[in-house]
């Protein structure tokens, strides 16, 4: 019994107006994950066609070095790596929010239909309008619009998560059908960029992308952490939630808004990247314990690590360069199947 207590060591900090319980294990894991993430970023930035040492990278980052090195480090590599990290965070956090609200480990923004909404608009934009500059905005609007439609269609005395999943699957299959229709109606060379986009990639990210995405993540994160407290109580069921005085629909709407904003911004800049949102929250919970604000942050950082690793793998370590979405799917899914196998056989 005592060993169990030591395992989940918590400390309580308390002053006259402030009192919180901090889980030391989770805090240490977060620190560890941040350290790993920084090392990983430094390593990833040395990789590529131009061979650079860590020192050269470091200097170039702060504006010291020849023009070519500066261009490679500051305009090509940093934005891409930063985008990977931020998008990974956004996906993981939004996945965790959706999973805790739906009380269903299967749910993620890709399953609830948001990605397919962004996809259909983005594909139409690329194939019909043929304009790449406003693409993120179009995809973002597509995602938000789809989310709103799903929410409204599932409203009936409140939007129950189960209903949202089903409505989401329905809406997604319609938008997927439209996407497929667009793809067969236009000549191959016209649809090719659209097909690449639908696989999820972070080619050619710019600082603008990094600024916008990190702004969204930074604004959402505090709200997401605050919402974890009522979400914890909400995992006990609707009746318990109500009797604890939590405004159920408002909290749900808040979580959905934040989750959608995060998912939409990531699909807007990177296309639909599968499995990060589904899988990383599981990994985070497995390592750090049941959901809480700390575990949410940990899950975000883990998302950054995973997406950066996948992108690095896709870019440098495979015989062909693949979009990162293909790598997360092809590697993430077997891992998930393995998790499933293990959890089944343990029961």
């Amino acid at each position, binding site marked *: 019994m005592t060993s169990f207590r030591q395992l989940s060591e918590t400390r*309580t900090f308390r002053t006259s107006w402030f*009192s*919180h319980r901090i889980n030391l294990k989770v805090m240490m894991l977060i620190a560890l994950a941040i350290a790993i993430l920084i090392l990983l970023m430094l390593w990833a930035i040395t990789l590529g066609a131009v061979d650079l040492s860590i020192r050269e990278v470091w200097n170039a980052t702060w504006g010291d070095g020849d023009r070519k090195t500066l261009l490679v480090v500051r305009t090509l590599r940093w934005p891409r790596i930063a985008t990977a990290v931020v998008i990974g965070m956004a996906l993981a956090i939004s996945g965790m929010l959706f999973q805790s609200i739906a*009380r269903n480990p299967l749910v993620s923004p890709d399953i609830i239909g948001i990605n397919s909404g962004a996809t259909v608009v983005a594909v139409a934009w690329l194939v019909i309008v043929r304009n790449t500059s406003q693409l993120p905005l179009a995809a973002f609007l597509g995602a938000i619009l789809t989310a709103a439609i799903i929410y409204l269609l599932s409203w009936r005395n409140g939007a129950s998560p189960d209903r949202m999943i089903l409505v989401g699957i329905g809406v997604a299959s319609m938008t997927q059908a439209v996407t497929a229709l667009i793809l067969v109606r236009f000549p191959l060379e016209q649809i090719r960029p659209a097909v690449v986009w639908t696989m999820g990639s972070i080619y050619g990210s710019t600082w603008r992308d990094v600024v916008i995405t990190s702004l969204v993540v930074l604004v959402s994160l505090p709200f997401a952490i*605050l919402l974890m407290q009522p979400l914890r109580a909400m995992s006990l069921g609707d009746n*318990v939630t*109500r009797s604890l005085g939590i405004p159920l629909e408002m909290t749900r709407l808040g979580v959905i808004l934040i989750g959608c904003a995060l998912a939409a911004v990531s699909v807007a800049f990177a296309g639909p990247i599968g499995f990060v949102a589904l899988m990383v929250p599981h990994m985070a919970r497995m390592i750090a314990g049941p959901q809480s604000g700390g575990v949410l942050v940990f899950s975000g950082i883990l998302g950054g690590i995973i997406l950066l690793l996948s992108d690095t793998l896709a870019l440098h370590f495979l015989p062909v360069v693949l979009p990162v979405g293909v790598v997360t799917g092809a590697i993430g899914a077997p891992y998930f199947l393995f998790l499933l196998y293990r959890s089944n056989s343990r029961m």
Partner: protein
Amino acid sequence: MSYLATDNLAIAYDNHVVVDGMSLQITEGTITTIIGPNGCGKSTLLRALARILAPKQGTVLLQGQDIHAMSTTAVARNMGLLSQQAESPDRITVSELVARGRYPHQKFLQPLTKKDLDAVDKALDLADMTSLRDAAVDELSGGQRQRAWIAMLLAQETPLMMLDEPTTYLDVAHEIEVMQLVRRLNREEGRTIVMVLHDINQAASVSDRIIAMRDGRIVADGSPDDVVTIEVLSTLYGVHCDVYQHDHHMPRGRFCMPRSNSNCGACLFAPSRPGFAVSELQTGYGKRVISQDLSLTIPGGLVTAIIGPNACGKSTLLKTIGRLQKRAAGQILLDNTEVSKESHRKLARKLAMLGQGALIPDRLTVEDLVTAGRYPRQSVWQRCSLEDERMVEWALEKCRLLELRDIPVESLSGGQRQRAWFAMSIVQDTPTLLLDEPTTFLDISAQIDLLDIVWQLNRDHGKTIVMVLHDLNLAARYADYIIAMKDGRIAAQGLPTEVIVPEVMQAVYGIESSILTDQATGMPLMIPLRGM
């Protein structure tokens, strides 16, 4: 002669032994009932007898033959099981359901023969379901649905029938309905019956033989008179029970009532607070109206129990006054304030509700669960104040959970789990507590355990308690005030001695009953006359 026998039977899940070295014989033409506390292995034993589970060791012999050496069809022609997990498919009619019981007698692709149809008709007739043969099973009352399933079992035409808790969820009238049918099948049709029952008194009223189990072993085995005794019940459940022998009633037999640890039974008469004042309330879901023009007062500072048959609207009333469910019309005042005017958080500081159908997330410990109950008292900055900590300790201690605080809720026993949920409700520190069937699925000792805590909270801390209770005798013992509902209306209300009387029982449940006096408390004790 013994129809079914086991020889040194042991059943284990993984390495956890549930039934241990059981040898027993079931005699042909008798009703045998297996009773015991939660988790004693009684349902597991029944499922092993029915060949649903493979034993770890030992054999089950059907007329001397090992059932695992027989074909599944041969077993199914000789014994049938009404599982607790039986589900009626959507839109199925009673006669279709009953016809499915013919499965073991049919060959592949063979349509229903004359013989099958006759068996279905006979089964419907025996279960008294002929008039409902074309009704949809979903639309039946609980008792009728259970009778339809028993008819399915009858169509299987097996000499041995096994029933796994056939009366769960049923109110006292429906219980009698099902038990009468079981009795008749045994007495008139000569069927051998093996049942698992939750309720000792039900078992005593219907059985020829009772097998009492605890921790996977047999504690006592014999006629109701042998088993329903103070000594056996005390070893079985760990509580002292009063046993009543009622010879001058029909049926003659034994009836037991567990003793409480608190000195409950002395009614308080003076409400200390206004409590709930409900006027012209309409409750329901969407378009479905359950109660209309409901006006009542629930006294503050007392223990009030709401009783009534299945689907009478008692849980809906409780949820509506606790604002878990929207009302369609009317007014609800709690201590003179309109409930709907309060903010969510403010209301949660005034009343707490222990409902049904709560979920248990993975790996949540008892302490985490109880702490979650402090939510309405916490702010963004104050997440773990000294007051929070003090209340959590108090609630854990009150519900005797201190030892279990770091155990995941999912691995608790039923009684412990219910105490943990109850602790979560009381840690909210509200003057009013609403409890929706807090004792369902608990065995008698766990029931008494929980209600004793409820009692203390009222007497020591002056909390207003409103609870929906299934068991009338527990309601009579623990409540100061009883409200009896029927068809969405209030049929009777008042002191237990005014409500628990034969006339009210007849009006509310439609049953004949006889009222004794509870030796422990002096409160009324209702014994249904089962007319068998």
